[in-house]
């Protein structure tokens, strides 16, 4: 399986390299044929269903093992919700729902959801790329059972559209919307955990890119007669970014190896805290070393830093997970800290 994954990673890199340029990211609409072509290429290679069971036509590679793929997708700044689709399809498949073809997005959060007669009403919040698909996953808890809900004909009233972000996001109010499928999620997996892991892996891919961009820019840009990268002040700032990234990557490799279970749910919290904190530092430093050019729409840095800003806030920010970790240790434990950590 490791070899299989290696090949997939390599192929994906090639596809993304070939199709993505920064202008593609500025026109994320369903009428853009370049966007459609890229999606078709992605789908042809089976990537959306990489973690879907074989019986539903997937590769059945465990979601946690494909986190390196999520990293690559976002390292290339892919202006499509491939990461969201992979996670949605995984959750659907784990709930024994056959995932649809095409893009599947999800509601990052919800408000006032009500389900009656196989229809759903309420607010679906911060839905990425709603403009590109009719398929949407909602995870909703009913009587302590977490359910996966598939919508395949989304429509409703857009109540907020966030244009200033790199990826399009929508809040939508739906009323009596037909549910295509609804089933309990296997092992009652918490969507907030999976989402936090997904966003962290995306952040790490994007942070790698941001550091590479910073290194490249500072090595080319000359001021005071020498490349910026030759100034110690600049070197130290870039090193600081690398240090933050390395800690986040270490936290991710834990999840990639261990996956997610009751026993190691702290690791998800640690990952999201670490990646979110690193993102904050890296956004600030990368813009600082880029100067004004990084603040323009034309240059690609901001595409990545805007995404980092969204992702660090999704599925619980650092404070949320710090509270979670701290509470868990202090309230449910009489052990001293070292015993608890080991």
């Amino acid at each position, binding site marked *: 399986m490791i070899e299989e994954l290696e090949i997939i990673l390599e192929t994906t890199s090639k596809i993304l390299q070939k199709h993505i340029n920064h202008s593609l990211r500025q026109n994320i609409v369903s009428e853009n044929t370049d966007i459609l072509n890229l999606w078709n290429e992605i789908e042809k290679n089976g990537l959306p269903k990489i973690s879907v069971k074989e019986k539903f036509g997937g590769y059945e590679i465990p979601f946690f093992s494909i986190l390196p793929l999520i990293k690559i997708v976002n390292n290339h700044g892919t202006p499509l919700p491939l990461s969201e689709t992979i996670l949605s399809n995984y959750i659907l498949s784990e709930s024994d729902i056959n995932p649809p073809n095409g893009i599947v997005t999800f509601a990052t959060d919800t408000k006032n959801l009500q389900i009656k007669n196989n229809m759903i009403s309420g607010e679906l919040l911060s839905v990425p790329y709603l403009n590109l698909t009719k398929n949407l996953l909602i995870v909703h808890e009913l009587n302590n059972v977490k359910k996966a809900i598939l919508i395949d004909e989304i429509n409703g009233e857009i109540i907020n559209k966030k244009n200033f972000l790199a990826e399009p996001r929508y809040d939508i109010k739906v009323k009596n919307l037909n549910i295509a499928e609804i089933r309990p999620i296997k092992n009652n997996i918490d969507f907030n955990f999976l989402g936090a892991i997904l966003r962290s892996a995306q952040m790490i891919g994007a942070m*790698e890119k941001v*550091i*590479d961009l910073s*290194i490249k820019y*500072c*090595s080319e840009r000359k001021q005071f007669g020498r490349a910026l*990268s*030759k100034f*110690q002040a*600049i*070197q*130290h700032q*870039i*090193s*600081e970014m*690398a*240090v933050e*990234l*390395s*800690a986040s*990557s*270490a*936290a991710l*490799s*834990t999840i*990639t*190896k*261990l996956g997610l279970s009751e026993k190691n749910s*702290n*690791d998800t*919290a*640690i990952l999201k*805290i*670490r990646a979110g904190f690193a993102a904050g530092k890296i956004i600030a430093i990368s813009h600082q070393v880029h100067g004004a050019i990084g603040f323009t729409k034309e240059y690609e840095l901001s595409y990545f830093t805007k995404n980092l800003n969204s992702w660090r806030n999704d599925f619980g920010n*650092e*404070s949320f*997970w*710090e*509270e*979670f*970790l*701290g*509470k868990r*240790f*202090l*309230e449910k434990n009489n052990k*001293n*800290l*070292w015993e608890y*950590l*080991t």
Partner: protein
Amino acid sequence: MSKFNFPFIKETNELSNLRKEVREFITTCINNNEFTPSPDAWVFSADPSFSKKLGSKGWLGMSFPKEYGGHQRTALERYVVTEELLSLGAPVAAHWIADRQSGSQILRYGNEKQKSSIIPRITAGECFFAIGMSEPDSGSDLASVKTKATKTKNGWKLEGRKIWSTGAHLAHYMIVLARTSPASEKNRHEGLSQFLVDLSLPNVKITGIPDMTGQRHFNETLFDNVELSDDSLLGEEGKGWKQVVGELALERSGPERFLSHFTLLDSFINEFRNSLIHSGTKIVGKLISEIQTLRRMSFSVASMLQSGESPETQAAFVKELGNKFEKMMIETLREFSNIVPLHEWPNQLQNLFEDATLRIPSNSLRGGTTEIMKGIIARQLGLR
């Protein structure tokens, strides 16, 4: 920017059992009043009799080969033992440097006589080392050392000064970095060599330097034309730079870079558990996330060392993050005094805290400064 990975390494059941065994041993020592846990114990708290005890338990020179009295265990096993010793503030300073870096350095570069005469004594907890790198005029700029070793008829003559050598006053040997030929125009790293110097030799003069806490742990050592035997050279003449860089990877990547003040954190949490539940869950969560990340990284480096890699850069990552974490931890505790004023803390905790506050500036100096760590990383990123 994906070349510096820290692959996840799982702690096996055998390792967890070893951890338990060490913990029980240390806890018994504490309960028997054999020592009082103290912060920064790997620098400040030397107890040769405790070191000897660890030696007889088989917990020193753990990864050294059996033929030299070692235990041929893994770097991961050693890691687990050192974590336990640090987290409980055990008095490990006497043997720390010998066990961490000098022994490995001798095994890697030493000749047969050096190995067979010294390694078994390190393993037994009877032979201690000091580091001979910095000099009065050479701190971060290590390649500028002026200590000179000149070839004589019977060996070498050593002349110069080393400074900031922790525990030199208790140590039997020092590995000294000295110039054996002038630096070339192009490469300052050439012409350096390492020497294994017996500190009881005539014309070695060790003077203590009290640090800002008033305690003595570091020293200045004068080598006033010290006659060294021929086989005092450690490794190859002129290859000292490469050797010393490898030694620094051992020095920088361990858990002492983030567990030096763990005893403070542990007592703090035990004391204020109830107040923390109401107003400190977030800070405790933040600290847990940092420690666990650092532990994973440092453990990962131990596994790299085990497989014979030279993780110099990864070690710099661990040290830099670890130093930052410890500073942040002390600041976090200080801010908590807004909730329970410092004068209401139990005396022992107040003392631990104030002690840590005093000592903390040294954590990002010893073993290489923050600036040096960042420089190493920058070089690996292709910026230099």
